[in-house]
């Protein structure tokens, strides 16, 4: 049969096939779509920025020869034991529950191999993860599943999570098929039920209370651990200012492309702002408070390449965090499982049903047979390889801009390809001096 468009049929731009399918699905099932991954819609992103390599006015560094350092210190504002990472790419928080124990262990192994940190998630700290993670950030989330002061003390940093880019203002959910006995025990919940994670912290409300809460966490850990505050990107300028006022050592800003294990499609695609739009807001807030580079900024949400890393840092981030990309490095959406993805109604390159526990790659599942497919040692090696590539790519771009440290990258090294990206990133449209939205 010929393609409908070739037969002169016209598809509605408003009621396109995806919209029609969504209506039909809602009418048939009475439920909305829940899925993993982050926003899939096209938004202005790092691809819309370009570096201005050195030429006459700037002096480049020799690739593969002259040093371009990548180490970062995180959390030296108040903590007596700040983190010293070898590379500025960290692993974002992902829960045991959402991910298999093997996947968590592999992430820890990979991060440790290249001298960076990994992060727990909404489900507590597992022995596998702590054991294989040289530097582990322990999340304090609204659900407090598995929250344990011994784990606070065993962690290297604490991340108070207010939200994430995929669902700012939303709690979490883990559907019953992923609530194994071990997951249920760690979360103090009956096995097999659909489990909701709260969207608000239970014991504090508002930034003034958060300051006191952070004070308590510091007291419990004797002021040793850096305290991060993580927000989903929305009113980023204000949120970052309030996080700093509350005493954060590090602020983590997660853009709308940031991933999730299970969230409503409507939430993922319609709440939050792009990572590109969030970074300049965060940097402005830090600069106005006089704490840029003193309170470090970690950016996440759609980091895929070393170019993304370098661009985020040029805009003012001190480090980035990866989640979805790390899962892909582990083997998520691998074509070797193409037939199995097809069998569960998806396809390699499209798979996002992290909520349903049938991940052929054994990453976003608690099924013992599927989980066993992921070798934590091999997975760790893949993650380490990927992290090295990201770092080397970022170094390549930094050297081209004449920088001896990736932290020396600056907005002046960037131009934008589109007016939208120029306005959001606050860098000139390529070939012009025009930064839309800057009052002229």
């Amino acid at each position: 049969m010929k393609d409908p468009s070739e037969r002169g049929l016209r598809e509605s731009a408003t009621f396109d096939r995806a919209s029609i399918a969504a209506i039909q699905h809602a009418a048939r099932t009475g439920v909305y779509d829940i899925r993993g991954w982050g926003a899939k819609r096209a938004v202005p992103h790092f691809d819309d920025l370009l570096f201005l390599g050195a030429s006459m006015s700037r002096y480049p560094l020799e690739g593969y020869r002259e040093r371009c350092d990548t180490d970062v210190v995180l959390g030296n504002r108040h903590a007596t034991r700040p983190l010293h990472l070898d590379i500025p790419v960290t692993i974002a928080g992902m829960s045991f529950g959402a991910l298999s124990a093997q996947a968590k262990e592999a992430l820890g192994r990979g991060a440790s191999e290249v001298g960076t940190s990994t992060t727990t998630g909404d489900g507590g700290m597992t022995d596998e993860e702590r054991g294989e993670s040289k530097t582990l950030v322990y999340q304090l989330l609204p659900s407090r599943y598995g929250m344990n002061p011994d784990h606070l003390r065993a962690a290297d940093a604490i991340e108070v999570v207010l939200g994430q880019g995929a669902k700012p203002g939303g709690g979490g959910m883990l559907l019953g098929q992923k609530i194994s006995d071990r997951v249920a025990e760690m979360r103090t919940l009956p096995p097999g039920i659909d489990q909701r994670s709260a969207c608000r912290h239970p014991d504090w409300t508002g930034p003034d209370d958060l300051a006191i809460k952070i004070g308590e966490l510091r007291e419990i850990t004797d002021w040793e651990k850096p305290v991060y505050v993580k927000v989903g990107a929305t009113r980023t300028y204000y949120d970052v200012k309030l996080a700093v006022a509350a005493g954060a050592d590090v602020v983590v800003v997660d853009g709308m492309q940031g991933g999730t294990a299970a969230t409503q499609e409507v939430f993922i695609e319609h709440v939050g702002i792009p990572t590109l739009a969030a970074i300049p807001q965060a940097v402005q807030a830090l600069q106005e408070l006089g704490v840029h580079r003193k309170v470090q900024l970690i950016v996440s949400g759609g980091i895929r390449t070393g170019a993304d890393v370098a661009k985020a840092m040029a805009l003012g981030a001190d480090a980035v965090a990866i989640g979805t990309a790390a899962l892909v490095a582990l083997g998520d959406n691998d074509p070797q499982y193409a037939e199995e993805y097809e069998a569960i109604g998806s396809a390699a390159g499209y798979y996002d049903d992290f909520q349903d526990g049938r991940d052929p790659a054994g990453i976003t599942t608690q099924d013992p047979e599927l989980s066993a497919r992921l070798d934590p040692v091999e997975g760790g090696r893949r993650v380490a390889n990927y992290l090295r590539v990201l770092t080397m790519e970022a170094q390549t771009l930094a050297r081209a801009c004449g920088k001896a440290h990736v932290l020396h990258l600056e907005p002046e090294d960037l131009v934008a390809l589109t007016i939208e990206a120029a306005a959001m990133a606050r860098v000139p449209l390529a070939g012009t001096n025009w930064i839309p939205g800057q009052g002229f």
Partner: protein
Amino acid sequence: MAALSRSEAEERAPSPVTVDLRESGVRALNAELHAPTAAAYEVLNPLGAHSIGAGIAHEIDVHVRGNAGYFCAGMNQRGRVVVDGSAGNGVAENMMSGSVRVRGDASQAAGATGRGGLLVIEGRASMRCGISMKGIDIVVGGDIGAMGAFMAQAGRLVVCGDVGDGLGDSIYEARIYVRGTVGTLGADCVEKEMRDEHRAELAELLAAAGLDHSVDEFRRYGSGRTLYHFTSEHSASY
């Protein structure tokens, strides 16, 4: 500093060590409590300071002579803390074990997310008492405010007075005993039959709290377990 066993500590410090918070701040107090050189402490002039006794991990007695601020005895493990006054927001939040007794009233989120131990509030408790509790036992001598035991997962909440609106909203497997009136029940919270095992555990909790009410004066509440699996048929409850 290595922790002392209780008997060792008692030998070294037979009488409580007194810490006056007007002279040494909360940081110095907590540093001592985290690596105790005594078995018992008396904290003078708390003056509503926050995080008093947060992060105790040893079997020590701490007596706070006055009102405490936020997160008093937060995440307590094994410590026995008494507040001779009222306590601010989040007293004994995420307690793991041990006991905390508040002689006066407690502010919001008392015992929030607690995973073990016993929290006794002799006076009244404000909103969100026992929110997201995960195994702690809480006994309140007086009334509690609205949204008590919100999303409570495990443990027991005993209220000897009246309860505000929204009790036990979205509750999981925690059990609630109320002697007075209940404003309204939250989503999926229902009254349940008081069987002998419930009377027995309630009697134990009241005895542990030092209260002598008759268990027959209480009613039991818990989860209807109708919201354990998501379905749009329950959309009015979400």
